[in-house]
């Protein structure tokens, strides 16, 4: 009798899904979010395997085929050096996603460290860090990125660093506010009461419990980072020739708007779709992971 009761209880417990499973269930409910995830997965696969499948090398020039319109041999046409635009757009996915992910990881790591320090230790640590965030947020973000690149010099790597820097305060503030609310929770009090050290509390309790909003914000931030990197590339402050970075490709297309608009259309569509994918996925994640943030 008692055994059946225990078994029943175990079965019940198995039925109660973990928070991640529950979030996944919520996420799947939103068709738009699933479409967004589909787009993101498509571009990730394109970034990984695409360059192996492209019809031509990214810098393979064919001057007799300059500025040819889309055709069966060049699906997206060719640019002013006779390079295949499809091959370059596909390779561009690798650059944009790489920059997007790395820049956001950089901002999350630095933002988390600063946010946790500010939120957990409070007092002057909090004052200093929060004021730095305030000041950084007082600049329009792309302007701050331009300032950083104008000092470091134009290159894709420096654009990535600039984008990572300008996004730090967004994550820092988010984590700080999360830490402030978590640190008053009972389980943190009990951890303190049994003599657990600060750094262990921070790493094994506070950090994992602050992650949900960071994942949401991170997904949306990848979208912004991709646009910012393309914007810097477009201004000539990011990736340099002959890199097939989407923003740089758009900048190069400006001279051929009249006779070869396809050089401008396809890189732009690629940026828009990737960003749309991350935005849709981010919105879905927000609704699934953090119902309070639901608009």
């Amino acid at each position, binding site marked *: 009798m008692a055994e059946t009761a225990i078994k029943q209880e175990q079965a019940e417990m198995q039925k109660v899904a973990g928070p991640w499973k529950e979030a996944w269930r919520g996420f799947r409910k939103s068709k738009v979010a699933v479409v967004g995830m589909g787009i993101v997965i498509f571009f990730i696969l394109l970034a990984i395997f695409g360059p192996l499948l492209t019809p031509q090398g990214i810098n393979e020039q064919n001057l007799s085929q300059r500025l040819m319109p889309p055709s069966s041999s060049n699906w997206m046409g060719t640019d002013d050096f006779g390079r295949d635009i499809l091959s370059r757009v596909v390779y561009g996915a690798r650059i944009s996603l790489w920059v997007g992910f790395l820049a956001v990881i950089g901002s999350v790591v630095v933002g988390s460290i600063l946010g946790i320090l500010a939120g957990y230790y409070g007092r002057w640590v909090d004052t200093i860090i929060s004021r730095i965030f305030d000041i950084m947020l*007082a600049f*329009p*973000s792309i302007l701050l990125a*331009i300032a950083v690149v104008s000092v470091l010099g134009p290159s894709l790597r420096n654009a990535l660093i600039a984008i990572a820097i300008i996004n730090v305060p967004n994550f820092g503030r988010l984590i700080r506010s999360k830490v402030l609310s978590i640190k008053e929770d009972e389980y943190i009090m009990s951890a303190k009461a049994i003599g657990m050290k600060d750094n262990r509390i921070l790493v094994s309790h506070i950090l994992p419990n602050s992650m949900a909003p960071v994942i949401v914000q991170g997904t949306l931030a990848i979208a912004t980072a991709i646009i910012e990197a393309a*914007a810097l590339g477009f201004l000539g402050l990011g990736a340099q020739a002959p890199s097939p970075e989407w923003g740089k490709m*758009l900048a190069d297309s400006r001279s051929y*708007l009249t006779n070869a608009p396809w050089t401008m259309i396809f890189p732009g569509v690629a940026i828009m779709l990737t*960003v749309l994918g991350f935005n849709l996925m981010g919105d879905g994640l927000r609704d699934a992971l953090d119902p309070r943030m639901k608009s």
Partner: protein
Amino acid sequence: MLHYIGRRLLQLIPVLLGMTFIVFMIIRAIPGDPAQVILGQQASEEAIKALRTNLGLDNPWYIQYFDYLKGLVTGDLGESLRTRTPVVDEVWPYLAATIELSLFAIIIAVIIGINAVIISAWFQNSWFDYLAMIIALIGVSMPIFWLGLMNQWIFSIELGILPTTGRENVRDPVDVITGFYVIDTLIAGDFNQLSTVLKHLVLPGTALATIPMAIIARMTRSSMLEVMRSDYVRTARSKGLSMFWVVYKHALKNAIIPVLTIIGLQMGLLLGGAILTETIFGWPGIGRYIYEAIGFRDYPVIQSGILIVAFIFVMINLFVDLLYGLVDPRIKYD
């Protein structure tokens, strides 16, 4: 209210000081000798020395910063290395061009964005509602520089109905009085010129307006829907007031507060986006001024340009905060 404004202005001081410090650091953070980097490898020893003295690079950094602040307070924004003109003397026409473009863009964004939301909320779950929300979703993901190029291609090159670049017809220049060409042509009473100026504003203005418009539409939809379902709207309807009147007189007033916040936040995006839009459309604004300065390593202009834009951004946010109280009397400033 006055007390609140005073407190907010006091709170601004550390932020403004921090901003000036970051901007001050732009030159100092250049790896190597900034004077050498600015003038290039071919520069003579004397030229480098002169620039070092001019930029005050020989003093300790805190003295340099103090001098820089002292200059700012007295209106000295430095001198352009390229044109040898004080920044403060040459910046206004650029700034006016950007302000005119941004205001035009925000007006388009607010008018179209809010009306789209009203119609969407009015006919919730209709095809218009879905279409508007899909467009808004795509609008948020649109790279502004691509949209600008598409605008240029479709409306200037293919259809030939709007000018590609610039702010005015160069053969018939506007007599500059205020720097805002719409106002200047109105003062002159020249409606032909006014029409040309407005035509030049359309493409960069709509490109710049798209993202704020999409964000306004997405963010205000829920607050508008909430208001439309509220009791007082139902009461107004049952009193026999027309739907149009109810929406524009009653509902809009209450749904506008979140829109204000968004407009405040969007100004940063708008000012940042202006740099990209101005580059595409050859718009002689502050974004282009900074952008060209980067090409010439004209650091005093880069510094002051960034500082001016950031200052405007901060002031707009303060202004929006204060505006809440006027729009929503429930908000009290204590």
